[in-house]
């Protein structure tokens, strides 16, 4: 799956989590979204894992700084091919 496809699928996840419309982009981070508090973050990451059928390693997500980093991480965790 390419970066663009991942971002498009992330948009669906975001639409399911946040009440307001949040346009995903590589630069987006929690500070840009009022609803994106620590609780929303827990739910968001679990939903991302379920939607993509992947599993992050402990501490990995915490190390990401924005959606671009998360997208890279998702691509890394997706089965190759």
């Amino acid at each position, binding site marked *: 799956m390419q970066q663009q496809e991942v971002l498009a699928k992330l948009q669906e*996840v975001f639409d399911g989590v946040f009440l307001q419309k949040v346009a995903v982009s590589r630069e987006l981070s929690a500070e840009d979204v009022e609803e994106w508090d620590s*609780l929303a973050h*827990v739910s968001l990451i679990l939903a991302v*894992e379920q939607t993509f*059928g992947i*599993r*992050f*390693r402990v501490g990995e997500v915490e190390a990401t700084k924005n959606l671009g980093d998360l997208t890279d991480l998702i691509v890394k965790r997706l089965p190759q091919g």
Partner: protein
Amino acid sequence: MGEWIRLTAGPVFGCQPNPEAGILEGMGSLLDMQTLKTCLELSSPAFEGELLAKTREAREFAEVLQLCTIRKRAFAKGLLPKSEKIRRIAMVGGSNMRPMSDFIEYFAAVLGGVSCEIWIGDYDNYHAELMDAESPLYVFKPDTVLVLPSDRRCVFSGSLTSSRAEQEEAAHHIVGELLDLSSVVHELCGAEVILGNFRLSPYSDPGAMRNTSLISDYSFRKFVNLDLGARMPSFVHICDVEFLSNRRGNLSGVDDRTWFESKQPFAADLLVDVAREFAHVLSNLKGAPKKVAVVDLDNTLWGGVIGDDGLEGIELGTTSPRGEAFRDFQRYLLELSKRGVLLAVCSKNDYDKAIEPFENHPEMVLRLKDIVCFKANWEPKSDNIRQIARELNLGVDSLVFIDDNRAEIEIVNQFVPEVSTIWAGDDPSEFAAKLKDSRFFEFRNITAEDVQRVQRYKQESERQQHLNTSTDMEAYLRSLEMAGVIKPFDRLDAPRIAQLIGKSNQFNLTTRRRTEAEVLNIIGDERYSAFTMRLADRFGDHGLIAVVIGYAREDDFEIDTWLMSCRVLKRQVEEEVLNEVVRLARVRGCTRVVGQYIPTAKNGMVRELYPQKGFSHSRETSGGVQFYELDVAQYEVKPTQINVK
């Protein structure tokens, strides 16, 4: 139970797997929410029903999360009515309670029709929050407290060479602590406590020792859970995490990473199961299970059509796998009947042919004596079902209808929407499982009265016939040789009293629901005079049939609660109850008895009770509650045909 049961066909709560999807749900097959989203966009009246349907199906975290968001949007658009039933729930535990608490609120509202305000404790601070009478938890004034201890604390910490007795003692100690905490809650604020128990470890460690001693987390927690169930008082209710985790698969319920990262108690999907269960328990605290299973015959109790295939032609019993499956389903129905669930038949058949297997088929498990009401004719099933409810003197909403024919199910859903229905499907090997997972007949405990209920309903139908032959009412009543026992509330009766309070709808003047714990509180409270009445006659024992709670307020003796089993209507029980009420009022030195009638959709039969019994109307509140008074000095004791002790 609330309105929600009406909107649904079949199981509502619970972990019922979607039959079309199979038992195992895979990754990446999340529910399609498009219809729901479209309903939301168009502000369609179908939205609420669609939301309910999707909620019943949703098993995965991502699905429920999305549903929560969609519901919030619907509220913002004014598409969902604001519920008035506000329950105050405090939730504490040994892990991060969010987002689970959000899901509990969601499920309680959507599936249970109960809207909750939830107060959430700090991570792993529940001892302090529950023990300290000044803590914010008690300032919140919860009516229910959910406690979810962390299984990380439920481990054996003693010596690995300890004796079995020491290991058991350690388990008893943990249970004792939890129950002590629960008692403190109950004493400090009177709340009910819903306690999560412990899931079992999914890991192989420590091998064979897992079963030979309690030092393994697995067997230690198993023992703790059993001990908890055995010792819990009536105000404690279990959210059976062990069961839910087993059901999903212990391994898939564990996610150590989310524990380390955000102190989540379970893996995402088990989080959903446990939230669902907490919501189920709290919405049903004061509810009652269903009373009657109404079953179809052809292709439901046996394979084939009795009218066409005849006694020899139907499939039933050990001669074929299909026949065995039908027999197994009958066995489960019989088991339900032993618990006190009434069985009725509703079938499109000629009566004479329909009863033949019950009388003459060697492999039938169910016999005519097990069926309290048998309707086999060519009238619409919706009419027959209403008739069954009438004959048993029960509300139609106490009935569950089971049929293999989807069209019949849909007709009943449409014309008798109060009845819950289960579509059995076309594979009899799944019938018993479907009914077992429906959650319609879950009892907290089984009393002797439940076990005798089926017998009593049979007696009642005999009695009805007897009544038809006697014209002189007084003579008839005398011939019944009735004996009654009136006595103050008794701790031993508390489960049965709470059960009657929870399920009596028709002869119920105020319909105030109370839990067993609340009943026990009344026993200890001087201001109340509360009594029960039992009745027996020459046809059999009716058991406990009336519950009255009186409250002495200076000169007034207020009838807070008066309810009776409809089985004993027109048997002069009302007169005996009133005699006792006035006697108690006199003992208390009260000069007036004050009765009130709070109208509901179901208690129209007692609207005129007080005026009929000589009370005078005193006032009416804006909510339609009628108040009546009776002058104690003027009251004359009414003679009856009941020999009261």
